C-alpha cells in the first residue's frame, strides 16, 4: 500500500499544473481574450478573428493537456507495483511488441487536429496577408524602419508619396477609426518587425522589399507600436505612438497642424515653447 501512496504525490504535480492552467485566464496578467476594458484588448477586426483562433487552439490543447494529465495519474495509480505477503509481485509483467491499431490512432488523431487548424485559419490569413485582399485605398503612409526608429512619410495634401509636401515624422502613426488603413512597410538596414499588439498585427520589414500592410481600429485612442524582431543593441528603443482619431476631420486637423509645424519658419517666442 505504501508504494501506491507515491502515485498520489505524483498526482499532485498533475493537479497543480492543471490548476495553474485553469487559473490563468483569471490572473491579472492574462491578455487573451481580454475584457473590453483591459489594456491588451483587441481593437481591430482582424484582431478578433486572431483571438478566436487563439481560443480555438487553446481549447484543443487545453483538452488534450487535461486528458493526458488524467491518463498519467490514472495509470500511475492503477498499474502501481503491488506485492503480496512474501514480497513477491502480485502481477507478472507482460511484454508485447507494438500495436498497429494504437499507432494509427495516435498518429491520425493529432494529424486530423492539425489539418483542421490549418484549414480553419486559411481565411483569416488570406484576409490579412494576401496583397490581393488588401483594401483598395491609397496608402496612409510609407513607414521605413531603421536602427532604431520608424520613419513615417505621409503623402501630405497632394496625396502623393515622395513629393515636396510629404509630412515626415518619427515614431508617430495616426489614422482614423473604422477605416481600413494601408501602409507601405520598408526597411533601410536590417530586418525589423512592425508590431501593433492591440491590433494583433505583426509584419516583418525586410530590406529591399516594400510590403503592403493593412489594419483598422474600432476604438479611438492611443496605442503602441513596437519592433518585434531583435534588430540590434537599440531594439528595445524602437517604439512608437499610435493614435487612432475618432473622425476624419480630427485626423485632417492633426495633419494640418503637423504640416504647419514642419513648415515652421519663425518662432512664436511668447507662446510657443514646445515647438522650438
Amino acid at each position, binding site marked *: 500500500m505504501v508504494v501506491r501512496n507515491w502515485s498520489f504525490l505524483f498526482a499532485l504535480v498533475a493537479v497543480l499544473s492543471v490548476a495553474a492552467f485553469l487559473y490563468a485566464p483569471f490572473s491579472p496578467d492574462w491578455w487573451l481574450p481580454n475584457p473590453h476594458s483591459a489594456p491588451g484588448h483587441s481593437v481591430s477586426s482582424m484582431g478578433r478573428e486572431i483571438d478566436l483562433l487563439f481560443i480555438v487552439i487553446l481549447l484543443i490543447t487545453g483538452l488534450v493537456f487535461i486528458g493526458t494529465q488524467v491518463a498519467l495519474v490514472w495509470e500511475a495509480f492503477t498499474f502501481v507495483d503491488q506485492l503480496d505477503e512474501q514480497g513477491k509481485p502480485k502481477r507478472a509483467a507482460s511484454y508485447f511488441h507494438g500495436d498497429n491499431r494504437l499507432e494509427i490512432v495516435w498518429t491520425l488523431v493529432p494529424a486530423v487536429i492539425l489539418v483542421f487548424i490549418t484549414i480553419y485559419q486559411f481565411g483569416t490569413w488570406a484576409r490579412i496577408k494576401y496583397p490581393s485582399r488588401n483594401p483598395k485605398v491609397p496608402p496612409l503612409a510609407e513607414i521605413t524602419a531603421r*536602427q*532604431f*526608429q520608424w*520613419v513615417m512619410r505621409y503623402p501630405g495634401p497632394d496625396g502623393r508619396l*515622395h*513629393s*515636396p509636401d510629404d509630412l*515626415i515624422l*518619427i*515614431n*508617430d502613426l495616426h489614422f482614423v477609426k473604422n477605416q481600413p488603413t494601408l501602409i507601405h512597410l520598408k526597411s533601410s538596414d536590417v530586418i525589423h518587425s512592425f508590431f501593433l499588439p492591440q491590433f494583433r498585427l505583426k509584419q516583418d520589414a525586410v530590406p529591399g522589399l516594400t510590403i503592403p500592410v493593412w489594419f483598422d481600429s474600432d476604438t479611438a485612442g492611443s496605442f503602441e*507600436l513596437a519592433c518585434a524582431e531583435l534588430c540590434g*543593441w*537599440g531594439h528595445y*528603443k*524602437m*517604439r*512608437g*505612438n499610435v493614435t487612432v482619431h475618432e473622425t476624419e476631420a480630427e485626423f485632417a486637423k492633426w495633419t494640418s497642424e503637423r504640416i504647419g*509645424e*514642419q*513648415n*515652421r*519658419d*519663425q*518662432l512664436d*517666442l511668447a507662446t510657443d*515653447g*514646445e515647438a*522650438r
Partner: protein
Amino acid sequence: MITRSRFIVALGLAILLVTSAGCTDSLNAGPLSYVDNDALTHELKGKANLAGKPALQAKVRAALARIFGESPQRIRVPENSGFPSGGLSLANFRQVGEGESARIEPIYHQLPDGRPDPNHRQTGGYGLYRRNCLHCHGVSGAGDGPTAAFLFPPPRDFRKGIYKFTSTPSGARPHRDDLTRTIRDGLSGTSMPAFDALMTPSEIQQAVDYVIFLSMRGETELALIEEGSISDENDTEALGEEILKELTAGVFDRWKSAQTQVMNPTIPRTKSDHESVIRGRDLFLGRTKEKLECAGCHGALAKGDGPSFVPVDVFNMVVFGGDPSTRPERVDALDETLKTLWNQKPDDWGNPLRPANLVKGVFKGGRRPIDIFWRIAKGINGAQMPAHYPTLNEAQIWDLVNFVLALPYDPDLLASPPPMPRPKLAEAGASR
C-alpha cells in the same frame, strides 16, 4: 546501489552549485563613479593637461566633488547654476538638512497647483539618463558608453558644452529647447533615436537637465585643467577658491545667457517658387558677389563630395575599412594630398567629418525651414559648417533654404554644374 545514488546526489549538487553561481550580483556594476577627463592625467599633444601634476589633479577632483557631487549617485546642485527646478529634476531622492539631522526623502512629480503628487514618484534626470542614454554617452557624458564603439557618427561628448544643432548664435551654448528637440525627435541619419515614445515631456525635461548638468561638470573640469596647466604644481594658492568661483560662474553664465539668445528670423520664409530656388542655387554655386563656397564641401552636385574633403570612398576606407583602433594607420597610408585634407577636417571632438549629401533629404538637425535657416545662418557648432549671417541677409538665407528643401525632389537643379577643380586622387585610397 547505495554508492551510485550517492554519486548521483553529489553530481546533482555539483551541477546545482555551478549553475547557481551565476545568480550572484557579482556581474552587476558597483557604485558608479565619474571618469576623469584624459587631459587630467595624460599628456595630450597640443592640449592643456595636468600630466605629472598630482597635487593639482587632486585639487581638480576635490573641487568637482565639492561643486557637483562625489559620484553620479550623489549629485550636488551647484549654486547659481540656473536649473529651472532648482536642480530637483536631476534626482529621485534628496537630502534634507545637514549633518546629524540629515534625512533622505523621495522627490515627487508636481501637481498642476505646484504641490508634490504623493502617488507619482519622479525618476529624475540621473535615473532616466542611466536607463536611456548612459550606454552610449557614458557615465560622465564623455560619449564613451559601452555601445559607443559601434556607432558612427560617435555619440556626443557633452563635456565641452558644444552641441551641433542649436538655435543660438554660432559657438554659443544651446537653448534648452534645442536639447529637448534632439532628445524628443532624435537626429535623423545618426544613431540618436527619438525618445518621444519612451519618455513623457516632463521626463525629457529631466533628462535635458541632467545633460546640462554633465556639460557644466565637464566644462568646469576642462576650465580647471586649463587653469592648472599654467599654474605651478607646488603653489598652494593655485586653483584657489576665488579662481574656482570665477571659472564656474563663467560656465554657468554661458548656459544662462544662451537661453535668451535664440535667433528668430525677422522676416518670414520667402515663398518657395522657382525664382527663389534658382536664386538659392546661384548662391550655392558661388555665382553671386558673395562668392559662397558651398560646393567646395557639399560638391557641385550637392552630394557631399566636394574637393575640400577626401573622396567618399577614401573616407569609407579609413573610417569603416577595418578595426577603429587602427584608423591612424589607414590615415598614414594615404598620400600627402589626401592626408593633408584629412587632417584639416576633423570636428572639434577630433572625429572625422563628412559634409551632408543634400540630395538625400536627410537633415540631422531637423527639416523645418527654420532648422535649415539656423544651420546656414549660424553654422554647425564644432563642425566645419560656418555661419553665413550676416554675410548673407535673411532673404538670401531663405532662398538657400528653399533651394536645399527643393533639391531632393528636383535633382536636375544641379544637373549641368560648372567644372570644379579636384585634387589628384591617389593610389592609396584605392588600394584596399
